[in-house]
């Protein structure tokens, strides 16, 4: 079983390497140029029934040629009924078979069917939690559906009746989030096939960053989307409560018809807007080299679209759709987006798209903090003090980061959630620290501070030994573990890696990884090997524990001791008979302890009472070690990881030991506690008697 699996991986890796090489040739253009006129690539081996193709357009990107290997072309004509929260649409999907083999069946995601009481998504959310839905009871407004009205394969007729729901992950017969179609005539390698689908969506009240809330709607995961042929097989997972998405790159041409009063934003560039006689209007959007398409509408958005960011590949038009009560934060939104874009371009690579739409979603909705290609949702409230930057700055930075880690480096979010959320959390720490300060990037009010670097670590250590990083997103123990490991642990592990290979080397590795794997679907090993290649180091010992294992790190300074070398003579003379002076020689010993199972070399800095500092290296392989000295000074303190590069130690308090107790921090904290307790007493006594 293991050997067969390795062969499959080997073949898939070979195929992926070949496809990467071919796509990389088209992905190196960086000079800003005017968009080239749309071209159409002829099919080398057209499917039966006509000459099909994927457009070669570059209307939505600052590149004269396509940047991805385009597999799909979605043409969708949709009408949104704001009263019923429904979408009626037709979809023409042209698929280019680049799998190297004939395809006789095609799985499709119908994500909105996840929002049904017996669906896997809802069952899991009820059982193990979810970011924004608790399901204390089922309410009809939470119901969502995606119903295929008709399904035609061009040249093979109407195959609606041949659609079969499948549940490849858990066998749940009531889950309808994946539908499979077996085609009578297999699609040859290199050929195109076209599907014509009519579908009807019932949007739920916002869940998992899609749906409606009041008069707002966010259209995410709203159309039938074909799975990805990846590593030699179809990859089309059911919709799970903790997982996100995976799709192929291509071209999107989407017509959206909405009521006349709606303000609309969407992925890609707006090509046309026209009013219709029935008091509606139709927006036409076009997207290049993206793998998903999302849109939003609300009659109350206030729009700020006068900003342009001068990117490395060309101008990027920034469009902000703000809630009226947050209009005074529009500048704040734009500032953080500009600063984030600036750092991503400098550190990782260019942003090639011509637009970025930033949506400030409906308050109190489950639509905030989400990424779609060239389209993100943030989140804030009318009360957002400037020193409290988790929202909007933190969330906007994070969601923009996904344009790189998911949008362009399109990893499999079902199976490798850490590669989008975790890597993005790492770059979030780097970018936010650069903009807002390492220890103030989350909070800086009234002398109380918090940094993202520590927030990620705390997120991780709360679930440190539950799951490994390298695990399918839907197989985590629960939502806390999923979040703490994929986001917090990955960020902490990569920050710690900086200390091992150097911050500059890590930055270079991230740049190389982005440039090499943008517009592809890399695996975890692609990422890890890139780091090894760039650093020139074998890091398996680290990855095996930190990425593939669930080992936990907890090093401590176990004990510190100093006593005069001639203590026995003192005893003969009677204790206290000879005072210790500056010529007294002390034997000092520092014990270090590896309390848990993560093995890693560490530095320790020992300070002596004469001001001397000594740094020692410990490989950490044994459970404990000790360092002894004979000096005319006592040990004052010992500190593990004195440069504070390790972010995965679950207990930072025991990483150091100061011989002479410093009670000030305790009394400061205690003073706060006393004050709060007394205040509580006064309030109680105020009202109760």
């Amino acid at each position: 079983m293991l050997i067969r699996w390795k062969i499959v991986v080997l073949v898939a890796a070979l195929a992926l390497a070949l496809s990467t090489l071919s796509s990389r040739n088209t992905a190196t253009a960086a000079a800003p140029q005017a968009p080239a006129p749309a071209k159409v690539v002829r099919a080398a081996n057209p499917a039966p029934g006509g000459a099909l193709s994927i457009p070669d357009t570059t209307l939505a990107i600052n590149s004269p040629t396509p940047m991805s290997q385009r597999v799909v072309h979605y043409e969708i004509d949709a009408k949104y009924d704001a009263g019923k929260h429904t979408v009626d649409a037709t979809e023409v999907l042209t698929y280019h078979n680049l799998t190297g083999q004939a395809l006789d069946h095609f799985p499709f995601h119908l994500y909105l069917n996840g929002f049904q009481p017996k669906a896997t998504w809802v069952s899991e959310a009820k059982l193990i939690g979810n970011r924004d839905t608790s399901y204390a009871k089922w309410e009809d407004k939470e119901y969502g559906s995606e119903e295929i009205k008709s399904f035609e394969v061009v040249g093979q007729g109407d195959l609606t009746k041949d659609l079969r729901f499948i549940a490849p992950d858990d066998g749940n017969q009531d889950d309808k989030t994946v539908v499979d179609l077996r085609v009578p005539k297999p699609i040859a390698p290199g050929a195109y096939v076209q599907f014509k689908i009519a579908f009807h969506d019932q949007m739920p009240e916002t869940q998992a960053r899609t749906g409606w809330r009041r008069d707002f709607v966010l259209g995410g995961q709203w159309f039938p989307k074909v799975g990805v042929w990846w590593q030699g097989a179809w990859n089309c997972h059911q919709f799970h409560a903790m997982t996100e998405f995976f799709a192929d790159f291509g071209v999107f041409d989407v017509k959206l018809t909405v009521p006349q009063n709606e303000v609309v934003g969407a992925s890609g560039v707006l090509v046309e807007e026209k009013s219709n006689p029935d008091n509606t209007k139709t927006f036409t959007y076009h997207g290049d080299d993206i793998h998903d398409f999302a849109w939003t509408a609300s009659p109350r958005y206030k729009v700020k679209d006068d900003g342009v960011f001068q990117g490395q590949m060309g101008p990027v038009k920034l469009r902000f759709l703000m809630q009226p009560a947050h209009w005074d934060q529009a500048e704040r939104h734009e500032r953080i987006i500009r600063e984030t874009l600036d750092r991503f371009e400098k550190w990782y690579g260019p942003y090639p798209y011509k637009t970025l739409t930033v949506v400030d979603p409906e308050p109190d909705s489950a639509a905030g903090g989400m990424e779609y290609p060239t389209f993100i949702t943030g989140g804030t409230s009318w009360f957002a003090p400037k020193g409290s930057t988790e929202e909007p700055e933190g969330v906007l930075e994070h969601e923009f980061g996904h344009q790189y880690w998911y949008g362009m480096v399109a990893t499999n979010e079902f199976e490798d959630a850490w590669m989008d959320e975790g890597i993005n959390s790492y770059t979030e720490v780097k970018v936010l620290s650069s903009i807002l300060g390492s220890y103030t990037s989350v909070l800086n009010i009234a002398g109380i501070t918090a940094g993202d670097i520590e927030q990620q670590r705390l997120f991780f250590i709360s679930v440190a030994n539950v799951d490994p990083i390298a695990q399918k997103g839907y197989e985590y123990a629960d939502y806390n573990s999923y979040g703490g490991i994929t986001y917090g642990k990955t960020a902490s592990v990569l920050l710690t890696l900086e200390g091992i290979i150097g911050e500059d080397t890590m930055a270079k590795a991230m740049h190389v990884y982005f440039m090499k794997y943008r517009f592809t679907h890399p695996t975890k090993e692609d990422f890890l090997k890139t780091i090894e290649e760039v650093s020139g180091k074998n890091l398996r010992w680290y990855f095996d524990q930190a990425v593939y294992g669930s080992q936990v790190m907890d090093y401590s300074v176990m004990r510190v001791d100093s006593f005069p070398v001639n203590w026995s003579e003192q005893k003969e003379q009677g204790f206290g008979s000879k005072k210790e002076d500056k010529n007294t020689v002390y034997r000092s010993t520092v014990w270090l302890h590896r309390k848990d199972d993560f093995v890693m070399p560490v530095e320790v800095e020992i300070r002596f009472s004469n001001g001397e500092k000594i740094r020692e290296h410990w490989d950490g392989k044994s459970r404990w070690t000790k360092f002894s000295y004979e000096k005319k000074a006592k040990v004052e303190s010992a500190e593990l990881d004195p440069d504070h590069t390790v972010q995965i130690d679950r207990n930072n308090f025991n990483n150091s030991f100061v011989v002479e107790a410093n009670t000030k921090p305790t009394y400061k904290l205690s003073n706060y506690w006393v004050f709060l307790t007394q205040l509580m007493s006064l309030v109680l006594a105020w009202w109760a008697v």
Partner: protein
Amino acid sequence: MTENKGLLGSGLGMVMRNKRYIVWLWLLDLLLTIYGTSAFREAAHTVLDHSLYSEKLLHGFDLSVMVELFARPEFGPMIAVTSPAIYFAIMFFLATALFLPGIFQGYASTYRLPREDFFRACGRNLWRFIRLMIVAGIVMGIFAGILFSINGAVVKKAGESTNELLPFRLQMIGLAVIFLVMTTLRIWFDLAEADIVLSDQRAVRKSIWAGLRHTFRNLGRLLASYVVATIVAAIILVGGLWVWIRFVPSESIFRAFILAQFILFLLLIPRFWQRGVAVSYWQQKMMVPVVTVQPPTPQPIAPPPAPVASEPLPTSPAPEATPIP
């Protein structure tokens, strides 16, 4: 307004003349809290005292370090350190209830109330106060429950509105209304407390009815006085915290402690000011004047008068009666 000034002024005067009560209660609160927070302190000593990491709490205040501290197993569960603090807060509340009759007596007194009289008042009214507190707890609990439920429902309904600020504004309005209603109830029971002590009223129900009657008879005047005192308390708290943040260095534990205690000491004043207002009002409006009958002046036994037929005999003055209002 003049009347208000009168109530506020006389109430504050009572507080100022009897500052020792506030000092003692502040000390009591501090001592109880020091006991109540000792578990917290000991737990923190264990983790923080020998660690360089704890410096992040001293120089500035890194919230992450505090969160990590609370999560450490050796610090113990939060409930273990919060529970004693809550219990001691309840003890302070009970102690306040115990000493309050003496304080009322002291406020009403025109002279420095002797310690024996203070404690006599406390003991004499203990059971009456317990009964009153039970009634007050039931009434205030019912009102608070109903009002907070209504407020919650209104805010929830407003949450469906497309006006994002509406729920917050309604919440604030609702809280203001709840504050006024609860303050009104507090006035009622403060007057009842004053009446119990100062009238030496055994029948608590009579004082409750008297308190209710007078609360609504002079609601505007009393409510204004109580609201003014509450505003002063809010100013003390906000201003004190501002001074703390602005002027006390992060590393200065002693100055922070002194300022914190000063804020808490000052915060005791407004509530006792309200009680002073209640006593002052009681004296002005609720006190039932006693019909005093001046006893006849004892006359010295005089030797039998010499028979002087032309002079009338001396008589004692007639008693003066004050009409009951």
